[in-house]
């Protein structure tokens, strides 16, 4: 039986789609059967980031409306064994799908895949409700900005209200030089406010922009520091105990983070 993980943030532009693409690809590289679902109907991106845009025939809305079979809509990524994408419709809106339809869809996919990653749209409206409907676990993505942390806090509250317990935090686009100078919120500051377990810290890396534009997730690039961070997150999702990357900060913080990082094997 597979597991449904929703990747969400509240605020737009913090890296949900990039995170979904990289973790999904990372899990596939570890030999897992993975499907990525893009629930951002009307503003789909995941297909572009994955470089699979030109292979879309059917989409999520076609599946829930019964216009095609689920198998027909799943795009198999030929580069990575076991990786599939269920793209969003571009010409419809979020109301074309209901939360119950998402629950049914996730149940169906769980039978066949190890991991179902749901890329959530920004906001807290219908699209968000659809995305979290079938989820077993949640990853909350934020960046070290006050606005992103504020939205993440709201999202965590909504996840808890929807009985998705124990969401994990990914802090994206961290610049350690700025944190050191005191110009950027530190991981500790963020954890202090959000009070949830940390599953990974992704450094700001220009390789991400290059790889995103090329449609090749950075997780496959051994030279990319963000890619390394995503590989580590992937292994933690699978239940391995991977220490956090050297963050170049004082020991007290590191020790504290290890304590906070109470990730249990699945």
């Amino acid at each position, binding site marked *: 039986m597979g597991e449904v993980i929703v990747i969400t943030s509240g605020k737009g532009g913090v890296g949900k789609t990039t995170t979904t693409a990289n973790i999904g690809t990372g899990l596939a590289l570890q030999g897992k059967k993975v499907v990525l679902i893009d629930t951002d109907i009307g503003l789909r991106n995941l297909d572009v980031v994955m470089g699979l845009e030109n292979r879309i025939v059917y989409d999520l809305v076609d599946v829930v409306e019964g216009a095609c079979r689920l198998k027909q809509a799943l795009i198999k990524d030929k580069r990575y064994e076991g990786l599939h994408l269920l793209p969003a419709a571009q010409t419809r809106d979020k109301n074309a799908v209901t939360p119950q339809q998402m629950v049914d869809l996730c149940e169906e996919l769980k039978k066949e895949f190890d991991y179902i990653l749901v890329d959530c749209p920004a906001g807290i409206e219908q699209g968000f409700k659809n995305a979290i409907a079938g989820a077993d676990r949640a990853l909350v993505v934020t960046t070290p900005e006050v606005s992103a942390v504020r*939205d993440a806090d*709201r999202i965590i*509250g909504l996840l*808890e209200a929807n009985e998705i317990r124990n969401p994990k935090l990914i802090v994206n686009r961290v610049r350690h030089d700025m944190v050191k100078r005191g110009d950027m919120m530190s991981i500790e500051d963020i954890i202090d406010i959000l*009070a949830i377990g940390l599953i990974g810290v992704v450094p700001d890396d220009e390789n991400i922009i290059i790889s995103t534009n090329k449609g090749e997730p950075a997780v496959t690039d051994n030279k990319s520091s963000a890619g390394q961070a995503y590989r580590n997150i992937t292994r933690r999702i699978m239940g391995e105990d991977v220490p956090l990357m050297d963050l170049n900060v004082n020991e007290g913080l590191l020790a504290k983070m290890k304590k906070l990082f109470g990730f249990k094997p699945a």
Partner: protein
Amino acid sequence: MEQETRGIVFKGNSEGLVIVVPEEYGFEQALEEIDNKVSNAARFFKGARIKVTYRGANWTSQQEERVKSVLDEKSGAVIESFTKDEESRQSPAVPKQHQPAQPVSTRRLFFAGVDEGNCKFVRSTVRSGTRIQYDGNVVIMGDVNPGGEIIASGNVVVLGVLRGMVHAGADGNRDAFIYALSIRPTQIRIAEVIARMPEEAEDTHLRPEIATIRNDRIEVEPLSTRALG
């Protein structure tokens, strides 16, 4: 009693308030004096719902409207009606007591249970977008994050860091207090007094603090026996 010589007198009755105007007063004089009296007693009226009647004067409906707007504005109470007292005979109180009882809510001016009374426990962190509203005291067993709101008619105790908005004594009780392991809110309110935190460098360690009203201002101080007394 002494209303003939002492100017305007406010009296309570079972329905609310009676304003007794000396017969020799002109309208403007009466209005000015009502304004003064109500402004001084605003703290007393805050949050109440009352019916107001008057005696001893014959005002036109426009004049009644002006007095009502002064009462509305200055008292902070909800004025349900403002009319001339029909039973201007001097002994209405005795027969009225035997009429069916009026709802007692008109007597209550604010939640007084700040030493004991109803209490709500919230066993989680109050996150952005969550609003806890309660007619009584509230205890939060967690933090209150920015964007979260606590509105209580009594005291608020936060067993965590207070970063959001808290309104204690929300229906007007100035004796209410706010307690937290660290008070760093976006805003705190007690009764009708609002305070923002000074924008100083944050000190991050936990130190229990209490916010109370002193001299019409909200003061936050480290919790000590002195602050408790």
